[in-house]
């Protein structure tokens, strides 16, 4: 589990995300889709659960600066996600629900090499480093196949290899099991468990959520529960039953 590596430290202070209302003249009226959120995330395994549209993905996108808070601040290991966005993204990897939108090169090997371009300028070094990454994640046998020819599970594993190639401190995953069958879900869960990185995962898979040390429940843009996974799942189930 890489217990020697210190966990990434994330701070959200009054973080709010607002979006303009399209029907407003001049788009000066806004709707709050998240927050204000005040959180300190220091655990190695954190899960986020909530209904569709509750704000889980927006919360996750704040963590590597994909979304900038309208007010408040978000920092990762002391780095501000807005002012020091590039450095934050080097520490925080993000995996999307659909791995096909993550894989931007024709093959996995080329995509891993793309991740390593800024780190290894020499082509030979880059190729060697990419091969090591592919072997570490057990996807080297899939590396030269078109990403279109991989199964959903293979694509998800390849997408993880791609974003983890640069050894980030924190891995953020947005519903990574949604498109996977039970077997691949289990494989992904095992892989996540073995990673040395800190992991924050938003999921509808309550079994995956229960493997975390801490779980957040998000509802209508607010963190309505923050605590032990078992209690969080009970809270979420009650919320769903009420609605």
């Amino acid at each position, binding site marked *: 589990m890489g217990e020697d590596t210190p966990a990434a430290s994330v701070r959200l202070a009054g973080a709010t995300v607002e979006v303009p209302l399209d029907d407003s003249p001049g788009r000066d009226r806004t709707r709050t889709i998240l927050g204000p959120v005040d959180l300190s995330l220091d655990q190695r395994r954190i899960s986020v659960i909530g209904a569709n549209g509750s704000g889980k993905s927006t919360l996750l996108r704040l963590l590597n600066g994909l979304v*900038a808070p309208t007010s408040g601040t978000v920092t990762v290991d002391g780095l501000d996600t*807005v002012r020091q*966005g590039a450095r934050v993204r080097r520490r925080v990897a993000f995996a*999307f629900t659909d791995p096909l*939108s993550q894989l931007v090169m*024709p*093959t996995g090997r080329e995509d891993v090499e793309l991740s390593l371009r800024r780190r290894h300028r020499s*082509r030979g070094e880059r190729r060697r480093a990419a091969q090591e990454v592919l072997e570490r994640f057990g996807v080297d046998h899939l590396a030269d196949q078109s990403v279109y020819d991989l199964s959903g599970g293979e694509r998800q594993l390849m997408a993880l290899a791609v974003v983890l190639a640069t050894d980030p401190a924190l891995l953020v995953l947005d519903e990574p099991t949604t498109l996977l069958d039970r077997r691949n879900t289990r494989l992904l869960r095992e892989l996540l468990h073995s990673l040395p990185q800190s992991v924050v995962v938003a999921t509808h898979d309550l079994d995956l959520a229960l493997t975390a040390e801490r779980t957040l429940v998000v509802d209508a843009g607010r963190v309505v529960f923050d605590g032990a996974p078992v209690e969080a799942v009970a809270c979420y189930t009650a919320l769903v039953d009420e609605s």
Partner: protein
Amino acid sequence: MTAHGLFTAHVPGTSLLHRMALWAKLAGVLLVGATPWLARSVWPLAFVSVGLAALVALARLPVRLLARSLRGLLPLLLVLLAFQWWSTGLAYAVRVVLGIANAFVAAGILTATTPVTDLLDGAARAARPLRRLVDPEVVALTLGVVVRSVPWVAGSFSDVRESARARGLDRNPRAVVVPTVVHVVAFARSTGEALAARGLVDPGDEGGGATDADR
């Protein structure tokens, strides 16, 4: 999403074309692209078509990839042929269509025989003199994304057409074009988001990412 063809992925091999320098292959693609302007009849273009078929065989590229690539392009070529025939004449229409098909196949041979990372290295090298104006890595990345997007867009068009056919709307251009455009915009958005999330479009050591304008 289904997408297959010469543009889908590099086809590993050891043929002369696989070993040829990138600049030589690029020069060949440019030359093929220029033949419609240089040729005064359809015969030089037909000769180029035969030459390209020979190169596909020489590089041992699967013929089914070539066929799939051309099948995706066929509807567009037919529309173009009909329009040019109607507006200018048959000989000119055939020259235009053959020229486009040849350029398409030549570019496909280039991408099939060259790893995309080599293309990116070549683009970054070529853009280096302009580094005060634009980051060479961003130029390389843009090229990579274009190469990756061609089969995706073709696959999206094919999927949408199948869906329209299932609903009995395949003769309605709106039922095919509008969803394809929506798919492409969504794809562009998700690709942009994926690149941003990986920090691939971030400049240097500081800044980048969300800006004050996002606030």
